[in-house]
């Protein structure tokens, strides 16, 4: 009886440890903080205009993208030049080289990009009903933890031929896998492996990888962009002129 009781206590203890261990293992990593582009120690500064491999665009999609570039490239125009946020996947893949801040909660992860104060929300927990969603430049992102990896699916994007690297249709679906490691020198590095599936625009899925490093002590700066345009508008109003 004593042996049985002892075994039972031992079993309970093992079970308790297992549950505690499982709880610890289930604790997701914390991505909270300000992140900047990762640069490996000793690596050269990234240069603008690095050649990009041709995209496997379908003919009609390529025609759309080419028409867009024929329109804006000669004058060097871009959405950002007009204070418009980048949108997915460009926002996560670069955002103009500006830092981003991640604020992590149990039910939502906020990604605040300094550029244009653009915000991306990654919902965890309950997924919104499809009828409650509408297209957006950053789409609707829903995430889940798989161990220490965060898997994020983004849908409900707007068609975006103005994406710098990866233009896409409104039916594009982006899946990202985020993981966090700490280098030997103590640098925390966040990696995203992205796959964009968009049969309307591409003949095959697009993949990309992006790395950031935690920037302790860095704060995001305000990024007011439309103020000069507003002041010019006010000035025209003062002078009795219309914008029309």
């Amino acid at each position: 009886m004593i042996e049985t009781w002892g075994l039972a206590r031992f079993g309970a203890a093992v079970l308790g440890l297992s549950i505690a261990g499982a709880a610890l293992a289930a604790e997701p990593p914390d991505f909270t903080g300000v992140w900047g582009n990762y640069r490996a120690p000793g690596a050269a500064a990234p240069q603008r205009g690095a050649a990009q491999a041709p995209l496997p665009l379908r003919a009609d999609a390529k025609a759309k993208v080419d028409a867009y570039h024929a329109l804006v490239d000669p004058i060097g125009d871009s959405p950002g030049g007009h204070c418009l946020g980048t949108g997915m996947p460009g926002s996560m893949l670069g955002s103009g080289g500006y830092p981003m801040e991640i604020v992590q909660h149990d039910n939502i992860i906020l990604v605040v990009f300094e550029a244009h104060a653009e915000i991306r929300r990654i919902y965890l927990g309950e997924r919104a009903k499809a009828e409650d969603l509408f297209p957006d430049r950053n789409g609707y992102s829903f995430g889940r933890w798989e161990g220490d990896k965060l898997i994020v699916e983004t849908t409900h994007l707007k068609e975006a031929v103005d994406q710098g690297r990866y233009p896409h249709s409104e039916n594009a679906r982006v899946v990202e896998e985020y993981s966090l490691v700490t280098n030997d020198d103590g640098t925390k590095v966040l990696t995203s492996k992205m796959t964009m599936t968009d049969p309307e625009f591409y003949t095959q899925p697009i993949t990309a990888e992006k790395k950031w490093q935690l920037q302790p002590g860095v704060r995001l700066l305000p990024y007011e962009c439309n103020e000069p345009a507003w002041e010019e508008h006010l000035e025209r109003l003062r002078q009795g002129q219309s914008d029309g």
Partner: protein
Amino acid sequence: MRKSTSRLWAIALALAPVAAFAHHSAIRFDLTIRDNMVTGIVKEFEAANPHTKIVLEVTDAKGTRDIEYEGHSRNNYYRAGWREGMVKVGDKITLIAAPTRDGSDGGYALGVIAADGTKF
């Protein structure tokens, strides 16, 4: 202090290839030319996003006139050491300005040397 300013200057130039083109193709400017210095009197300095507007009264072989330059974003200038009030109307400043491709007036201010010698 001197060393600190030099470091900021170095950081600013190092950041320039990425930061300067965050929002603009800058197709008007020849960004391969990174040592063109222009000195003038500040008529306007509007640190703004996505790009800063700088108007200088410049005197050169073509005469004296106001020339408008485009510069990095306010946020990038801030991180390179610029602070509010550092550049005022009437100041004599120098720009490290990538010139226009067609040779017309203007350029892209890769860096600024303020009246007190501060570089950003």
